[in-house]
């Protein structure tokens, strides 16, 4: 697997604890390579949220280093990490991803206002933000013009998650982190949603980190990591 390229994410002897003396995360090593589609299996309590926080640069470890896309997050200031996250990482959450008072298109283009690098990528493609949003939505199977006119709160959950995926992908961030994005979907929709996500990550060249406790999805990914095995702190506890 793309072993010759430098890793997109590299965790080295990372330790993190919310309270002193009670580590929630102890990961000796984790390497994710460009354009990989990684499945991270983690039941609740396995340190999943904390790991995502570390990858997103919202928190920094007490020990070890977190490298994302060649940048040592711990060496950055909070503001720099905010910039970095906005430019480099697209997020899809389990539920309620969308801003209720914005339209579908406005939700999709929202990150561009905060992420100059992603905005630049859209501009370089020769498309307007609106066109790019429509293109992504179309790829994700949301091209019904009537649908796009509706308030986002009236969309089905499956549709909302696809809008969220379009938002995570716009401006081709290096990394897409999806946190249980399918847990609110019916099983027949799950596979389709994941395939759409794969296709778009492939097209934009983004690495996909997909976190879920649903074992049935595991087989679709390039690689699977069991967070419980990876996280030594979890074993201790």
């Amino acid at each position, binding site marked *: 697997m793309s072993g010759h390229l430098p890793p997109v994410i590299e965790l080295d002897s990372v330790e993190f604890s919310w309270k002193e003396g009670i580590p929630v995360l102890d990961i000796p090593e984790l390497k994710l390579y460009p354009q990989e589609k990684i499945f991270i299996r983690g039941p609740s309590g396995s340190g999943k949220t904390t790991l995502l926080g570390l990858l997103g640069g919202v928190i920094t470890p007490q020990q070890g280093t977190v490298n994302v896309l060649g940048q040592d997050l711990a060496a950055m200031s909070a503001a720099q990490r905010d910039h970095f996250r*906005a430019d480099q990482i697209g997020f899809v959450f389990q539920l309620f991803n969308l*801003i209720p*008072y914005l339209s579908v298109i*406005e939700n999709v283009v929202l*990150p561009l206002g905060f992420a100059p690098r992603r905005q630049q990528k859209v501009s370089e493609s020769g498309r307007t933000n609106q066109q790019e949003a429509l293109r992504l939505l179309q790829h994700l199977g949301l091209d019904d013009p009537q649908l796009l006119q509706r308030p986002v709160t009236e969309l089905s959950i499956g549709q909302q998650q696809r809008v969220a995926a379009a938002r995570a992908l716009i401006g081709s961030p290096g990394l897409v982190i999806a946190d249980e994005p399918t847990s609110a979907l019916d099983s027949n929709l799950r596979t389709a949603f994941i395939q759409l996500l794969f296709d778009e990550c492939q097209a934009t060249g983004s690495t996909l980190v997909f976190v879920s406790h649903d074992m049935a999805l595991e087989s679709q990914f390039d690689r699977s990591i069991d967070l419980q095995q990876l996280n030594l702190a979890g074993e201790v506890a």
Partner: protein
Amino acid sequence: MSIMGLALKSLKNRRATALLTIFSIAVSVALLLGVERIRVEARNSFTSTVSGTDLIVGARSSSLNLLLYSVFHIGNATNNITWETYQELAGDEAVKWTIPLSLGDSHRGYRVLGTSDAMFSSFQYGDGQSLAFSEGKPFSVLYDAVIGSEVAAKLGYKTGDSVVLSHGVNSDSLQQHDDKPFRISGVLQPTGTPLDKVIMVSLEGIEALHIDWINGAPPIAAFSISAKDTEAMSLQPESITAFLVGLNSRISAFRYQRLVNEYGEEALTAILPGVALGELWQLVGTAESALLAVSGLVVIAGLLGMLTMILSSLGERRREMAVLRAVGARPRHIFTLMVTESVLYAAGGVMLGFTLLYGLLFTLQPIFQLQLGLHLAITPPGEFELILATLVVISAALLGSIPAWRAYKNSLADGLTVRL
């Protein structure tokens, strides 16, 4: 999308509570602006009445009392000025014109003002305006009367109508001068001064009414003199209540004032209207300040209502903030978003407040003119109004930084976790 755009859309999404908040700020702002406007206009109205008069002369009393009874018809004169004294003082070389005023009678609650033709030729109010007639002309014969605009409107009088004047100004036990009715010769245009509320007759007319009265008592039938007989008589007034003075040059005002105040034959007082008005404003200033302070507190209450509204909405908007953070909004963006929201509330409230104020002004202007004789000038917002508007918006921004700070702290603590 800009932070401003986000804030606007967010408010639009919560338009019911947002509009109520804006409305409560608007009402409080309109109240404060309205109180100030009426205060200023009331002062202007008083000032306007005496703007063309250099001095007011009456029997010795406090300057405020003289000002109030002579020009504003509030209260009564302490004494009269004899005709001879008036003639002498009016003949001073510094004097350009005088307008004699004789008060004491009334008609259905409106004062009767005995005066001379000088009232129509020399009296000036406001920005140098003279009295103008909406119909008819000044009094020319003995039993002619000129009425103010409010008298005409309230009592429905027009030129040619006949009116009977009453002796005294208190409504109880009035004795009617029903043997000598007056005919209305003219109606004045509205002036916004107390002259809107008077019935003007000539000094001779006042004299004729009382020619057969002895010591303030009506004549017994045998000694009464008919209206027709009086017309043939020489009706020199014995006294007047006060007179207004216009000088050739205001430089001589103090000299003339001293001349009057030190007049040997009679105890008199001459006042500079502006100085007397200053005393009046000092007197009512405390009440005005109290009213303004209360209105100011209402504005503060409106802003606190806004603060409560925003603070209570923070909980349900926590997820929205987390999503914004996840798509790249920095904590300072969250802070700016919340402050912008407060400023939008305040700006909306202030704008609506001004709209309410001007709506009210246009509605109330004719009513105030008619009921109170107070002319509310409708002018663009002045310095006070603009300063106030700015203060409200700045206060809102400062208050808004409280929920903004909390949202900021929340967003730092929550990070990207979207809690269910």
